[in-house]
């Protein structure tokens, strides 16, 4: 990713990760239900990654 110079402090890997996770977990093309795949009982498509996202980015709430 290019780093435009309008980044503000504190920038760096932690906040970049927030931006990334916001996108790859909550956005992007979704596959409709009938091609859901289960791997040993794990439903990856319906997996709610939001819970994990909150855990990872919880620190975003701190100034």
């Amino acid at each position, binding site marked *: *990713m290019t780093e435009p110079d309008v980044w503000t402090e504190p920038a760096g890997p932690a906040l970049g990760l927030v*931006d*990334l996770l916001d996108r790859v977990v909550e*956005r992007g*093309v979704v596959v409709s239900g009938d091609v859901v795949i289960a791997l040993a009982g794990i439903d990856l498509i319906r997996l709610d990654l939001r819970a994990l996202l909150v855990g990872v980015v919880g620190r975003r*709430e701190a100034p």
Partner: protein
Amino acid sequence: MTVPERCVYLYAVVPARTSLPPIEGRPDIRLVPAGDVALVVGTPDIAALSRINDPESDSRELAELARRHDAVVRAVMSVSGSVLPFRLATVVADEDAASDFARRHATEYADLLRRLAGAGEWGVRITAERTAPAAGRPDRGGDRPGTAHLDRRRRELAESQRRADDRTEVAARAARELGGLAVDSVRGHGGVSVLVDESYLVRDADTDRLLDTARRVRDRLARYGLLLRLSGPWPPYSFSRLGGDP
């Protein structure tokens, strides 16, 4: 663990006649044709993906999965010019399942790919610093110490509210100015102290103007104790869903 041997991980939708050179470090990445579009697929790291479910899982694993996913999408975008990135961890039974799914929406995806060609996604977040710059004023007091304290407190609260209102308005105006350069926008879910959280779709030809505007806006916002954070260019994660999708 029983794993379907032919299952594939979906990275992106691309135009049908995309030519995909080998991606460094990823010999598993390949194209699956689907009519007017094609899918960029790879071999899923089942062990890593399965660990997402584990409550003990290190969040760094999720971060690593996210980076690998985004890296493949960016590599494709650099040669394709237009991509629709998939959500993380989209795994289907095999290439036929992938192709069947894509063919059902191929026309819509092809239209969306054309619309997104030559544009990039940019994230704008405006946050308030913990303490805004305050205009100090000597306390004139009242007749008695108690009154003086109440008077001062009332003034402080009113001033604080004015500053908050100003910052909200200034941030909103900044968002409108930056958004004016975009052809589309999607709101983020913000957070504590987040006044603006938007993703903008901006034509490549307007990128320089976006950066110039962002620098000006950043400096203006700083006078109000506000931080502007611009990130990008991103693959168009926020603009890749079809109308009917969740």
